[in-house]
């Protein structure tokens, strides 16, 4: 029996079928692996597969099988199909392992599957449905009011910021409404580094949660709005401390498929800098100095959106290694073989228990390094890992790199 494309009505998925069909179901994607004279790595990297185990859940093989089955009419949509689709975090570990020509299209396929699921009468996770129903009104997925977005910002700082500046600090929803500590540390850091920046009251969600859960129509409004901000405030680039915002603004807004979504939302062309890249550049140029030390053993968690998705692995490590007193130790699963914190792809909202369970696995791995602090450069990872620290009664402490840097760095 051939897997003939029958369900052309599933347009988002059907347009990818040529690529989806290239998945041989070989299973390379199910396990992280590298072997050679200097390499000897083998570990489970797929959080979804680690949790649910069945082939359908493990690596990209299962999702590609599901897509083929749905498009060829071998199976029908069901709540279980939705569960398989929505428990995929989109961490990209399977993409790293894939060696066939579907590789570059896998993230798009995961999101296209979710997009099609919304059109069916199947069980979209309640948590995802809930924030999705209010995001248009609130401009954030936290069910908070848009007008409260800058409440974290002390009035004194707010008043000192220029109306127009070289950079817009794109705060992101998690730092604005939940991890305000990171937003505040970032602002203080940028001020100490004497960066010409401002914060804008009409920043909307970057659309990452919408794209990662396949909600293209709503995402369009957000992308069209945010891309106008630089022009409106006379800025030349966005600075962000959020890995999710960085991935979305730099890839989804700007790159052609399969990486980005210019086919759906048009092409944007602007500069996006993660705070950590900014600091790294200033350290390299000798523009900053440290006025104290940080005498702790620290391990770094690679956020999937900054690491595997955007290939930024070295900048955070270079910055951490430049901090006096800090000892950086690596987890076994790091860089391209990092293990996800469990928050992305709508999973934290949709499946909180599974999300925290995944984060606890990561905390256990961090503990095994002997570090007392786990750091990252993503408020969303910070939040999930910190919740896991509390839930598992770990003695580790969660810190964003900006929180480590801000008290001890200054511009020369």
């Amino acid at each position, binding site marked *: 029996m051939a897997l003939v494309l029958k369900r052309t009505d599933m347009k988002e998925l059907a347009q990818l079928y040529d690529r989806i069909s290239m998945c041989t179901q*070989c299973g390379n994607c*199910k*396990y992280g*692996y590298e072997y050679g004279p200097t390499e000897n790595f083998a570990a489970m990297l797929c959080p979804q597969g680690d949790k649910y185990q069945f082939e359908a859940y493990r690596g990209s093989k299962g999702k590609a099988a599901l897509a083929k089955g749905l498009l060829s009419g*071998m199976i029908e949509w069901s709540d279980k199909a939705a569960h398989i689709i929505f428990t995929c975090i989109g961490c990209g570990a399977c993409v790293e392992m894939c060696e066939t020509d579907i590789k570059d299209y896998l993230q798009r396929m995961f999101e296209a599957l979710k997009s099609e699921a919304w059109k069916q009468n199947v069980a979209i996770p309640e948590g995802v449905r809930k924030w999705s129903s209010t995001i248009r009104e609130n401009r954030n997925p936290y069910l908070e009011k848009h007008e409260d977005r800058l409440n974290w910002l002390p009035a004194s700082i707010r008043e000192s910021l220029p109306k127009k500046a070289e950079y817009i600090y794109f705060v992101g929803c998690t730092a604005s409404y939940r991890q305000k500590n990171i937003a505040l540390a970032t602002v203080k850091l940028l001020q100490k580094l004497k960066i010409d920046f401002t914060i804008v009251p009409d920043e909307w969600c970057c659309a990452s949660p919408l794209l990662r859960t396949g909600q293209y129509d709503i995402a369009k409004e957000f992308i069209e709005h945010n891309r106008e901000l630089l022009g409106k405030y006379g800025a030349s680039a966005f600075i962000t401390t959020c890995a999710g915002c960085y991935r979305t603004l730099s890839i989804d807004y700007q790159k052609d498929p399969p990486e980005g979504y210019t086919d759906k939302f048009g092409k944007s062309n602007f500069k996006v800098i993660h705070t950590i890249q900014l600091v790294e550049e200033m350290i390299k140029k000798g523009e900053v100095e440290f006025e104290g030390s940080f005498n702790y053993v620290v391990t770094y968690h690679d956020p999937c959106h900054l690491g595997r998705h955007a290939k930024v692995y070295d900048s955070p490590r270079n910055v951490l290694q430049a901090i006096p007193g800090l000892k950086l130790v690596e987890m076994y699963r790091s860089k391209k073989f990092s293990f996800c914190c469990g928050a992305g792809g709508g999973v934290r909202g949709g499946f909180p228990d599974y999300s925290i369970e995944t984060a606890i696995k990561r905390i256990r791995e961090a503990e095994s390094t002997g570090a007392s602090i786990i750091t990252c450069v993503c408020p969303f990872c910070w939040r999930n890992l910190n919740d896991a620290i509390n839930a598992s009664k770990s003695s580790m402490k969660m810190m964003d790199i900006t929180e480590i840097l801000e008290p001890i760095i200054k511009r020369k």
Partner: protein
Amino acid sequence: MARGSKEILQKLEQIVGPDYVSNEEAVLLPYSWDLTWTEPRMPDYVVMPKTVTEIQRILRLANHYRIPVIPYVNATNIGGLCVPEEGGIVIDLKRMDRIIKIDPETCYAVIEPGVSHAQLSAALKATNPQWEGYEFSKGFEFGWGVHPASASVLAMAINHGIGHLNGRLGINSQLISSMEVVLPTGEVVKLGSCAFSDSWHSFLPLPRMDGLFVGWMGTTGIVTKLGIWIFPIRPYKDVLTIAAETAYDMTRYMVHWRHYSLCDEVTAVSWWLAQIPIPYPYQEKPKDVPEWFSYTVISGWSEEELEYKRKMWKKVVEEERARGTKLIDFEYPPEAKRGRTELPSRIIGSTKNYSKSCGGGLAWPGTFAPCKSWPILYEKWKEIYIRHNLSPAVRFTDFQGAHYGMLRAMTPFDKRDPDSVRRAKEAMIECIRVGIPLGMLPYKPPVEFVNELNARADPGYIYLLTKIKDMLDPNNIMNPGKLGIR
């Protein structure tokens, strides 16, 4: 959508817990097919046991209700072995993933079915050969094949999989040293030295009852633990390459070279298999390039040992040239060389070489054949493949000496196109048909190949095969249909 019966589902849930059973089509779907043209068939349940006791209980249940049972780990066998011909219960064994023991003194390991090549190679590389704590060298290895690293070591070994040491040591089923099996009727048996002590080092000098479970494609029981011999990694390696105009000339060179038993592997591939990807549909070979390319991997404990092997290899090439064998010098691409000396490899282990841009289909007439028949069958297969608009991407590999070796044709095809699926299937069955009279035997064969084999088999062979199967599996629940006799 759910399949099967609620009653059976509940009983399976009672055995392994509700998280590890499903009868939902969306979960069952990946268990219904593999890379090949084997007709997809949906199982009714998938169950993921963690212990031998759970397997026993599942098999007793299946026997009671006469439900087919299909053992499964990764299903990358390219023969449809795990496709449930008659539905039933897929037993996905990947939760049984313990490396139970690595004995660095007696040089064996004991593994469960879910242990992947990735897992085992990493663990073996980190274990050093030693005696009473004195370490001789760094790391162990097993026969690593050219497949995804997620594949099961146990499943590969008991199904006659080949590895990178097959020229020196034979195929992986020859490297098995002991086993534990759950019989279809639920009893647990130990075979080999492990039946008498906790030492899993050898089957000999006992009767080779492991033969009741090796090469039977999961139709006679479920192997739950396997002892395998492991080998010290030799620190010096090299890959030597030579091309030839014809399959005859290539075979003459290979037979001569392996006569000295100096290589870990000697393999030759036709021009079509040397391309990445294999041309699909068929493309004519450029006239100015050789038709056959070979590599041989040599290894040693010192540069001197390696140099001696290089010298002997050059002598063979010179002697063959002197007697008229047309051998052509060529350089192996660095990536390919790396892949051959660093197995299991992500590069070679993937299927990108075979299936890029071809709609995800991959199958083979994979056979063991006497070397004499390689060039004869290659010419026959080439005609068949070209007639079916497929590239004759053929490989010869010698197994441990002068007796026999592998002859196979990697065949990408487009699973989206019914005509492409049909052509690939028909071509391969025709290849098997012409090969059997010349001594060729398909390994890990799909049912269609088994039927060809059985049609030509000695009646006594079929009689005993049937008798053993009936004795071990009276209700024919184990992977039914795969032997072509029930």
